[in-house]
């Protein structure tokens, strides 16, 4: 289980492999995102979704810098490559923040995942 509290420039993350679930919420524009996301990437390398189960990722979009985009894009690509057909991705996007939908598209670009999108 990985639990990271949100700050103004870094997201809340709750990753619970026992429930096959990860939630991520908020901004990601810290100066050193590779350090911030290192625990997620370490976990990712050894993780496989159990047979017959699905892993669910819910991301509530905030403002991301391009360094964070690269890391999360690679994270999503890798989890999908390691667990083909077993990852459900859902974005939650503030309907008054049009540009965040564009950021969500960039996050998922070339990952092989087809997210569902819910506006709020």
């Amino acid at each position, binding site marked *: 289980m990985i639990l990271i509290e949100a700050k103004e420039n870094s997201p809340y993350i709750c990753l619970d492999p026992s429930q096959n679930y990860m939630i991520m919420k908020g901004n990601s524009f810290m*100066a050193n995102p590779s350090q911030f996301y290192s625990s997620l990437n370490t976990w990712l390398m050894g993780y496989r979704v159990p047979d017959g189960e699905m892993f669910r990722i819910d991301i509530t979009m905030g403002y991301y*810098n*391009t360094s964070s*985009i690269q890391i999360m894009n*690679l994270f999503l690509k890798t989890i999908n490559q390691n667990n083909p057909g077993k990852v459900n991705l859902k974005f939650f996007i503030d309907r008054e*923040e049009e540009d965040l939908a564009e950021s969500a598209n960039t996050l998922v670009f*070339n990952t092989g995942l087809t997210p569902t999108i819910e506006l709020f």
Partner: protein
Amino acid sequence: MAKKSDISNKYIIYYEGEVDEAVLVFFIKKISDTKLLPNRSKSNIKFILIELITNIISHYSSSSHGVISVEDNEGQIIITSGNYVSETNLKRIESNLDVVKRIKNVKDHYNEQLKSVSYDKSVNLGLIEIYNRCKGNLKLSSKQIGKNLFITFKIKLNDIN
């Protein structure tokens, strides 16, 4: 933190001093809270500031001192940032900007660069992001101050309404 804001009618925000993550958070909050700009413009300004300021924090040389401002110039938003850089970084930025200026479809170029990212290789997408958001209205200048180089980005956003 040495902060100045609203120093004249045209400045939405002005800052001069040490640049760190607290300054970045301050700018983003200030732009989010201002009632002087429509949401769409705020979003563009925030994305540009995020790239400019994280770049200063990550790549400054000799001093993290910087100048950052957002001003309203009769309906046109001008974002300016200045900071000290090494000669190597200045050459890298000038070279990257020359490449981006020659690209016909900046968004496609961004996506191609993103495709090439791996655990061993990151790419510099910040300049491409800024260039795309200001539609190429970006000027880069530099000057020698004593032994140091000071680089300035001036970015214009039209049609803010």
